[in-house]
């Protein structure tokens, strides 16, 4: 592999993979679904949509009808509105947690791979330690602690605490991946060639190594998001999530008690919302991996 080939491949990866993605009919449909979720989440997050979710719109636990599309809950609130606000909660947690995971993981991983020596030792120790606590346990413990923590007088309770708990648990995988990739690439001929022609190490990382591992981050992020959506649901369900606004996890928790009285609609709405979003993100992640990762064999037709 020569120097020029490597760099062009890196820069060309995005558009080509996007084309691949759009050519995949399923992935395209899923992309539209995710876009709809994002729009709903933004609209609900800013309060423009379903800002009045806490209002009573009908009798307690009214079944779905033309008036209340997804029925009402125990407090007579519209399940549809709660579902929209839940989308905002879920999407914001997922986005924040993914950002934390990717940035912390990539930063630490690159630093470890780049500096080696004691920095590497420290970072490896840190991620082995954090990684050795089983993920769900670590996440629960962190969420439990962060719930009562505050930064600069601002309570972290709610979305920030959940996102942090998820992010602080999940960065380990990204970090390990990036560290390995950086070390691997440093030993490649093209990097050695770049070093020989006098490129600075920072430039090597920035211009040569990062583009070559960037696509890995995107794949990792999309595949991780599925786990994050579910993690948020589980944490909220266990009462560690946001409490001042609906979330799909808390909706499932509330529906659990309603379902024995025959009110299935809140459960169906929340579970359906989680399922469709997870499925969409998952399919997109898979498609991205197929499109971007050269290691994956071309699919058999």
């Amino acid at each position, binding site marked *: 592999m020569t120097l020029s080939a490597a760099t062009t491949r890196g820069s060309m990866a995005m558009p080509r993979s996007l084309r691949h993605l759009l050519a995949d009919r399923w992935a395209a449909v899923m992309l539209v679904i995710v876009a709809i979720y994002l729009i709903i989440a933004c609209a609900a997050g800013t309060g423009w949509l379903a800002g009045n979710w806490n209002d009573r719109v009908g009798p307690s636990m009214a079944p779905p009808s033309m008036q209340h599309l997804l029925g009402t809950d125990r407090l007579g609130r519209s399940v549809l509105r709660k579902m929209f606000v839940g989308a905002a909660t879920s999407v914001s947690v997922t986005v924040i947690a993914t950002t934390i995971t990717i940035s912390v993981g990539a930063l630490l991983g690159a630093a470890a791979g780049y500096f080696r020596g004691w920095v590497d030792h420290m970072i490896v120790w*840190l991620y082995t330690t954090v990684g*050795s606590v*089983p993920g769900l*346990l670590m996440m629960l413990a962190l969420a439990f602690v962060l719930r009562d923590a505050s930064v600069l007088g601002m309570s972290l309770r709610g979305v920030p605490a959940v996102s942090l708990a998820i992010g602080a648990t999940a960065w380990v995988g990204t970090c390990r991946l990036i560290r390995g990739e950086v070390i691997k690439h440093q030993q490649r001929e093209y990097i050695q060639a770049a070093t020989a022609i006098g490129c600075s190490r920072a430039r090597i990382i920035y211009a040569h190594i990062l583009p070559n591992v960037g696509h890995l981050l995107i794949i990792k992020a999309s595949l991780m998001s599925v786990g994050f959506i579910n993690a948020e649901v589980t944490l909220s369900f266990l009462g560690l999530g946001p409490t001042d606004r609906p979330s799909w996890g808390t909706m499932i928790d509330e529906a659990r008690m309603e379902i024995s009285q025959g009110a299935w609609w809140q459960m169906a709405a929340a579970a359906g919302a989680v399922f469709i979003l997870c499925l969409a993100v998952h399919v997109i992640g898979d498609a991205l991996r197929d499109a971007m990762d050269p290691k994956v064999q071309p699919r058999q037709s």
Partner: protein
Amino acid sequence: MLVYTIRRLIMCVPTLLGVMLITFVLFRLLPTDIADEMAPRVREQSTREDIRWAFGLDKPMLLNFDAARDGRWTDVFDSQFADHFWGLITFDLGRSWRTHQRVSRMLADGIGPSLSLTIPIFVGLSIASIALGIFAAARRGTRIDRAMLLGCVVAMNVPMLALIVIAQYLFAYEMQWFPTYGYGSPRFVILPVLVGIAAGLGGNVRFYRTVILDEMHHDYVRTGRAKGVSESRLLFGHVLRNAMVPIVTRLVMAIPFLMLGSLLLERFFGIPGVGYMLVEAMSGRDLPVIIAMTYLGAILFVAGNLASDLCYAWVDPRIRLQ
């Protein structure tokens, strides 16, 4: 091999010390007052102070200089930090704040029910998903394979919570095929085991299918096929044998975690296992139990890793030299 084992064991030490530090930083520095948990309604201060005293939580956090000045210099370690480390190193996990029982005793009580749930899930899930994975891999590219793959992706994304609630409602509550809740006879674990298997099937089948397919892309398979070896002989005779390494590693890695039970299943079906214990400890802010569980989880993980590494090293002598 012995040298490698010893080296690998020594490498575990900093990790475990790190976990002890993390648990201390996470939990001991929390503004949680044992007196609030044990005597929430009591306003009378001496009762509250004495409860803290009885659990050693009136000691200074890091180092006890006051005691050292008055007594022997070793008293400087009469602090919560030293107690925490010493307790974890000697496996004295302390007493639960809520139940006053020794945490080790609670764990011993909980592991049985947890295992009675997780072992059947593990065995059933492994057998079913390896079989289905082989089945799909053998029919790769066909309509059946694609349907199974689609099924896997769909199944992987059904939220576990909803699956549990719906299964419990339908099969236990409405149809009354199984007891809804409780523990005591094998009947109680059937439904949770089935739900556990159903929840894990999608992901596992996909994993095993990929593992086997990855192996099929190797050169020796192509050579074998060119030589005219039949497809099924190739699959069962060669590919599977080689794919056994990642499969067995995954299985070995999973075994320690069986002891941690299943948080959600235990909670929903009322199985008094370790997972349920953790959920209760979380809601009751029972720090000794949470700390013990976190630490134990880490030890199990390290042990699982160690076991799988040693397996690898045993199979592949090159690893020992690295």
